[in-house]
């Protein structure tokens, strides 16, 4: 059996595959389809300080090879997640990553420290890339100084490793990546969705009640690959790559671009078994292209043959 394992700060992954935040809920629904212990890790849906209802519906739209969503961070709030959701996931032999979000530095701080006291959470994914998250009108995710500040503060209250999730809606992703690395990030997670819109011809209005939404799916894969490739050359912390992954070949493409592990989002909606199937297919695909393990791909990428 091929060795698919990956060691990342705080995460001993049996394979590099995890469902992306917001695309797998808190795992319960998908546990009816396959054993979640098969997964490298699970990234939970975003947690905020209090319960949030999110945006009005419609919240989703279909686009060519992709989709738009404006769920608006609906979640039961960090306390209920810790009480009701984490214990369920803790039954499985997989790592749990908590995706945290907030509207203010204080909220981030609160959510991060709440998870810090939770035995079964292994890492934090710090979502600074959600369009809802602004302070002084500027998104944390698009301003290097703000991105660094929120990273520092979350790090200061957290013993868990922090993976900062970057927004692709920026002129220069390298600057942000370097800023959060300097601020103490243990890793990066990239990319979040690109802001998009669709107009419904019959009503002549945006399809989404929120007007704009985040574009995900295969359509954005070339942008994700480019950004990971660019950033990898500038930093030395690991990257969890995502954006349009829908099969094992895509995973290898991300690993070659410089990702150390990957998350699968939108593809779960088309095929609820996708993460499980990708894990099954990965050894064959790696072998086909001459690799003997996931670590082997990482070393290859590091030797600078692609990078």
């Amino acid at each position: 059996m091929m060795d698919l394992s990956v060691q990342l700060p705080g995460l001993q992954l049996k394979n590099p595959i995890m469902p992306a935040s917001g695309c797998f809920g808190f795992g319960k629904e998908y546990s009816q389809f396959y054993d979640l212990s098969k997964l490298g890790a699970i990234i939970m849906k975003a947690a905020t300080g209090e319960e949030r209802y999110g945006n009005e519906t419609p919240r989703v739209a279909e686009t060519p090879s992709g989709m738009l969503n404006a769920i608006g961070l609906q979640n039961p709030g960090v306390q209920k997640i810790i009480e009701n959701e984490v214990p369920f996931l803790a039954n499985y032999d997989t790592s749990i990553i908590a995706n945290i979000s907030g509207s203010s530095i204080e909220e981030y701080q609160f959510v991060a420290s709440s998870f810090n006291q939770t035995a079964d959470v292994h890492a934090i994914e710090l979502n600074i890339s959600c369009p809802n998250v602004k302070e002084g009108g500027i998104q944390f995710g698009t301003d290097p100084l703000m991105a660094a500040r929120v990273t520092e503060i979350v790090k200061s209250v957290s013993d868990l490793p922090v993976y900062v999730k970057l927004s692709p809606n920026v002129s220069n992703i390298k600057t942000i990546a370097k800023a959060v690395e300097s601020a103490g990030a243990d890793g990066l997670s990239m990319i979040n969705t690109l802001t998009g819109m669709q107009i419904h011809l019959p009503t002549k209005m945006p399809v989404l009640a929120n007007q704009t939404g985040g574009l995900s799916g295969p359509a954005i894969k070339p942008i994700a690959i480019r950004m990971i490739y660019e950033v990898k050359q500038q930093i030395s912390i690991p990257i969890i790559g995502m954006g349009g992954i829908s099969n094992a070949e895509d995973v290898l493409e991300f690993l070659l671009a410089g990702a150390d592990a990957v998350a699968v989002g939108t593809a779960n909606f088309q095929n609820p078994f996708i993460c499980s199937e990708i894990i099954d297919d990965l050894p064959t695909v790696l072998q086909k292209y001459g690799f003997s393990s996931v670590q082997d791909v990482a070393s290859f990428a590091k030797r600078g043959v692609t990078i």
Partner: protein
Amino acid sequence: MIRRETVMIKNSLDIAADTVEMTLHNSYLSKNAIPGQFLHILVEGHTLRRPISIADVNNEEETITIIFKKLGSGTKCLSAYEIGMTLDVLGPNGNGFLLESKDSTLLLVGGGVGVPPLHYLGKKASEKGVEVVSILGFQNKESVFYEEKFKQFGKTIVVTNDGSYGERGYVTDFVQTIGPFDSYYSCGPAPMLHALTKKLEGHRGYISLEERMTCGIGACFACVIPTSDQLSYRKICADGPVFSAKEVVL
């Protein structure tokens, strides 16, 4: 339990304007589907699955019938699938209609592509000896389907908006003309459900709702609707699509 199943298209028929009836062979689904549940159908070249209600089940033939309107690109593409081809579907999804055990008369009120799920419900109720009265609304004569099938369950009023067939007007104009009933079950466009639940406020009623869906299984929060008390929410795909008329805000 929801499963991902491969279904084989046994028949595909245009039964009204832009309206297709498809018969799908699958043993698991035919054994497990209840009225009001839906299939979440993968259509080639489309990111998101399409939710389509189960309109009928034939246990002997192990088939499920769906009826859908060609509206956008997904349903158009689905209508082009030919007999013998297979589809990847999730199902059966959602909670489905639960028949109140003591009901002796049911009122079914359907509008357009809200009619299909009521058909399977009417059939089941009728098999149990419940009296079924139906009011079916369509845009015009060309859009009418399944009138004969509902007539087999009991009294059936067909209403068209333009009066080109049956009665002229809206389904809500005719609920008063019906005798007493125990519960009503309805599915159709949001404005119709809104008007209907208001009109039948005192009655016990169940409505089936639509919303744009992603996962279809309750994981993504795409399809939520606030509860009547505005304090909570329901997921249409998993907690619904059928709700008590009092449960949610339309």
